[in-house]
């Protein structure tokens, strides 16, 4: 078992949900595919989907919804299946 860090490629504001009224892309403990979106980062009013990057289980999110993130910052940890 290895751990994979999901990294935001861009600076901006971090979101767990596609919109405020929808459920989160992925909860902690959920199984995800490598290409599955786990969060959004908003940069200059445009939204970028961030994929898990590895298939496995979401161990934890490292930032809170609507927190500010930097480019290259780890936002979640996946336990690789």
């Amino acid at each position, binding site marked *: 078992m290895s751990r994979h860090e999901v990294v935001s490629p*861009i*600076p*901006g*504001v971090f979101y767990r949900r596609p919109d405020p009224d929808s459920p989160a892309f992925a909860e902690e403990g959920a199984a995800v595919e490598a290409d599955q979106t786990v969060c959004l980062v908003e*940069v*200059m*009013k*445009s939204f970028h989907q961030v994929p898990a990057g590895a298939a496995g289980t979401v161990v934890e999110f490292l930032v809170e919804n*609507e927190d*500010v993130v930097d480019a290259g910052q780890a936002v979640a940890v996946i336990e690789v299946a």
Partner: protein
Amino acid sequence: MRRLLVANRGEIAVRIIRAARDLGISTVAVHSTADAEALHVRLADTAVEIGPPQAAKSYLVVDAILAAAKETGADAVHPGYGFLAERADFAAAVADAGLAFVGPEAAVIERMGDKVAAREVARAAGVPTVPGTEGGIEDVGAAVAAAGEVGYPVMLKAAAGGGGRGIRVVDDEAALRTAFPQASREAAAAFGDGRMYLERFVRRARHVEVQVLGDGGDVVHLYERECSLQRRRQKMVEEAVAPGIDAGTREAMTAAAVALCREVGYRSAGTVEFLVDVDALGRNPGGGASRGWFFIEMNTRIQVEHPTTEMVTGVDLVAEQLRIAAGEPLRLRQDAITARGHALEFRVVAEDPDRDFLPAPGAIDRVVLPAGPWVRCDTWIEPGMRVPPFYDSLLAKVIVWGEDRETALRRSRRALAEFAVDGVPTTAGLFRELLDEPWFTAGKFHTGTLEQWLVDRSEAGP
């Protein structure tokens, strides 16, 4: 009006502060923690921090802005564009706090911001809207009759639909008879409702907008702007006045904009947007009554591209907004407003045109802004600053005037060649390429042209 709070950031906050200062009005800036060092904060007489970087927690928080106004003794609020500029509840809250809102009344913002209500105002004022059916149509016979009145080509849209699904364009009755039952069946399957709307389809449209100023009674226009050069509905280049619009059409369109604003007792600066059918314009030059142009919507704010109008008319639109908000009647008489020469505006944004316009916030090391005769650069960037990722990507507006369009284009090449920013990619180089395109210099384009050019350009490779 003695003290104005500017509820915005970036270049427009700087622009508003300058107008206020020219009129001897003191200014209050508000800012997020990300903008503590920003130019608008330093230019204002007073500044108040209103929250963390995220706009939803700072520039969009009505209570924080009103508290800042109270704390600093401001007696007026200018919303700029974007953020709270067209939020009727904000205009109402400002007025309820006993402050002057620099813009129309909340009820007018609400009415003109609602597409259906705005179309009704247009009809009442005798302003043409895109011809179409009022309600949904159920059978092909009714569709053929309606299309005969609307005029071909027509667009079929699911009455219950949205998001472009099931839209079909037909050129004649035969095509309509084939397409209607299909489209209706699809709509019934997708939305449980087979009724269709029919609307005139404009294959090649231009976006032309008329600038107005009103004081609640009197309304004047300040001619039109051409805003068709867009990417994903974001304008990139604007011009005043619109090339290729004949005198008859201009007269009819500007009169329609004034009539519309009189209908609602419009107060402040505003923009009336029209869709112009390029093909109808070509078929019937000079035909002001040809109805090749239709009202689309009204913007109840100062617009990004307002400087082009200022360059050709010599009117400071923001200063006029402030005077009107202070309760002064319009100083401008229609017959004293003329449009002289031609102006263009290029929106330089921090996006990478070679990476599908990926937004590119970051540190700026060096800035060279164009200047010289008849070149204006509205900006907030400075060497050593960081462009934050939290707001829009607009860095600078390069605005150029010339005695005619040809001269303005030549001067634009010069101005954009001077423009330099190190640290983040910008669209300045793209505009230098654009200025070499014959279709652009000839003024032969519509709302789809720029996007197509960008696709062709990216397919051609570097």
